[in-house]
């Protein structure tokens, strides 16, 4: 297995943890020796910096969702150094909220930018920033989707 394949395997394991909402499994793929891990979820107003913030987020996520699925595509692995890798990918999450917030499932495509370093136990995350396209672009995508649904005779090629 090449170094890039080894990095990619860890990232794919991370994405797969969504299926069982295995946030303990996700945490295990972070560098436990990193004093200031950075996780910036797309829905979080503030970036999560430090283990307490990450643990609180994962705990809350486990309780707020009834189900979560994720699939990722367009992986790109860049080795910045022998032991540091930049990985970008696009992920679509599909979530059903729990409790009073329950609604039909919602989903979005998110652009992921991850930094991992090699540890004795394998490649591990130390920074992960999630970001969808911006609101103006998403509004245009929504309007294009509506046009396709309302006027298929014009828009569907």
């Amino acid at each position, binding site marked *: 297995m090449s170094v890039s394949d080894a990095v990619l395997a860890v990232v794919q394991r991370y994405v797969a943890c969504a299926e069982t909402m295995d946030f303990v499994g996700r945490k295990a793929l972070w560098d436990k020796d990193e004093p200031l891990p950075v996780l910036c979820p797309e829905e979080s107003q503030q970036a999560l910096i430090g283990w307490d913030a990450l643990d609180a987020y994962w705990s809350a996520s486990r309780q707020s969702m009834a189900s979560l699925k994720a699939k990722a595509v367009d992986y790109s692995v*860049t080795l910045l150094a022998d032991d540091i890798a930049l990985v970008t990918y696009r992920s679509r999450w599909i979530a059903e909220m729990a409790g009073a917030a329950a609604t039909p499932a919602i989903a979005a495509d998110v652009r992921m930018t991850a930094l991992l370093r090699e540890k004795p136990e394998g490649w591990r995350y130390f920074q992960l920033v999630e970001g969808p396209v911006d609101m103006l672009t998403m509004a245009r995508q929504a309007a294009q989707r509506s046009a396709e649904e309302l006027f298929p005779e014009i828009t569907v090629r």
Partner: protein
Amino acid sequence: MTEDVAPIKHTAESFWQAWSECDVKQLVSLWDMSDGSCSYLPAESSARLVGPAAISDWFAATTAEFATIRMRPKVVHPRRLNSHLGALFAEIDWLLCRSKAATPIGGSIRISAVMRSTQDGWRLCHYAEAPLAPIVELRHFYQKIAADGHGGMA
């Protein structure tokens, strides 16, 4: 390892200042353009711009499109990854205006960046713009209208 992160932060701040001055030459100069795999992920794009030419063209096109650009950092977390690599997470406020007569638009955005130490100083080799989820931004917008009450109606 010396954890001198000030030069990394300085390069990022220079980059945002160059945006605010629409200074394409300065924007380009703050990148390691010898890196053929350098990449830039704009907020509105699902795919990265890869390579010096694509990134330079993006700077030229964007600065030509807007009469006014402002990039103002509010949170910056630089870090050293090793002797020659650095990373940065930041939150910045942005403003764009197409012409002097147009109404500006703006917002906040998160940044993930990687830099490399070169003979010219710390230079960017990866930069990703990560917007807050629009569903959250819209909720905030609704909340701001509610805070205005009916007095804010035109």
